């Protein structure tokens, strides 16, 4: 039962909330450390700050922009979670 509701929440956060999130992202949200724009990476469900090389997770459609939630991008390359996203960003 719990699992089912979680899946539903996840879908909701990923679909309906996603577009609205992108609008607010482009207009208002920035990296908390550098105040530079964030890039949305749908594959890893995160917001990437290219200026400082940190990615911030989006959990259930909620962007977590507290510095301690940020992960340095090098770690993610090791984990191969973010590979495709970074390739897209560079091209």
């Amino acid at each position, binding site marked *: 039962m719990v699992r089912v509701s979680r899946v539903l*929440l996840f879908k909701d956060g990923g679909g309906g909330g996603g577009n*609205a*999130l992108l609008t*607010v992202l482009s*207009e*208002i*949200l*920035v*990296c*908390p*450390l550098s*105040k530079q*724009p964030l890039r949305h990476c749908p594959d890893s469900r995160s917001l990437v700050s290219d200026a400082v090389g940190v990615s911030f997770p989006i*959990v*259930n*459609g*909620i*962007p*977590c*922009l*507290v*510095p301690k*939630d940020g992960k340095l991008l090098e770690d993610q390359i090791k984990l191969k979670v973010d590979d495709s996203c970074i390739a897209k960003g560079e091209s």
Partner: protein
Amino acid sequence: MAWLMRGKDEFVDSVAENLLDRLQDCRKTFPTALCLGGSLEAIRRLLHGRGGMEKLIMMDMSFDMIKVLKDTDEKFARNNLETFYVVGDEEFLPIKENSLDLVISCLGLHWTNDLPGAMIQARLALRPDGLFLAAILGGETLKELRIACTIAQMEREGGISPRLSPLAQVRDAGNLLTRAGFSLPGVDVDEYTVKYDSALELIEHLRSMGETNALFQRSNILKKDIALATAAVYQSMFGGEDGTVPATFQVIYMTGWKEHPSQQRAKRRGSATASFGDIQKHFGRGSC
């Protein structure tokens, strides 16, 4: 966390109501607003379309808090208001410069370590002529508890340690606004006295608001006998005839605007073209 999610609280509600009421005093509308941590739930519940908001960003340090708010979002049917939920820190505000019309904070900012820094970031995030509106707990808050706790500790341990978080004084609030660079700063104070059935009930209420000691270097153990002694001192010094104990909450409301050419300001010294003597002559004669 369960303590913090009890929902309705009359004291918090009246502060939030008072804060939101100020939006109606402005002719301006605030299409894009940011609501900082603290009593987000009360603000959302009591907003009732005030301030002409179109986008409202709710921000709190705690993911769990934000998640609960987001999950209950559907209950609040609002027309033309989009609400976004973000986990963020006031001291590292993830908001673009010049992108907001309003920053509102209800009983949250007294928790920040670097209050001036947080306020400067709030000002940067505002558009020119944007409004910063905040309610914080002032230094007179829980003075009865401070006194009772100090006496109990002096009596039992021969010394005191800080049991209650330090809070801003009224004069600090004005300085903070000026230091953060807000124009037309305004500060006013309200005191609420809440009556409890017992001192223990007061502690329970404080916990439910999440307003227990935030000091890092505190002594973690409050011995049982000191707690009981505090309750006894509290009851005997401040208890009313009907057996209730009062607790004072001082709320400081701060208002500041981001600078804009349309705002009134003092003229340069010596720029006057008429003398006060002439004015007195003119009006003095007229009134006689």
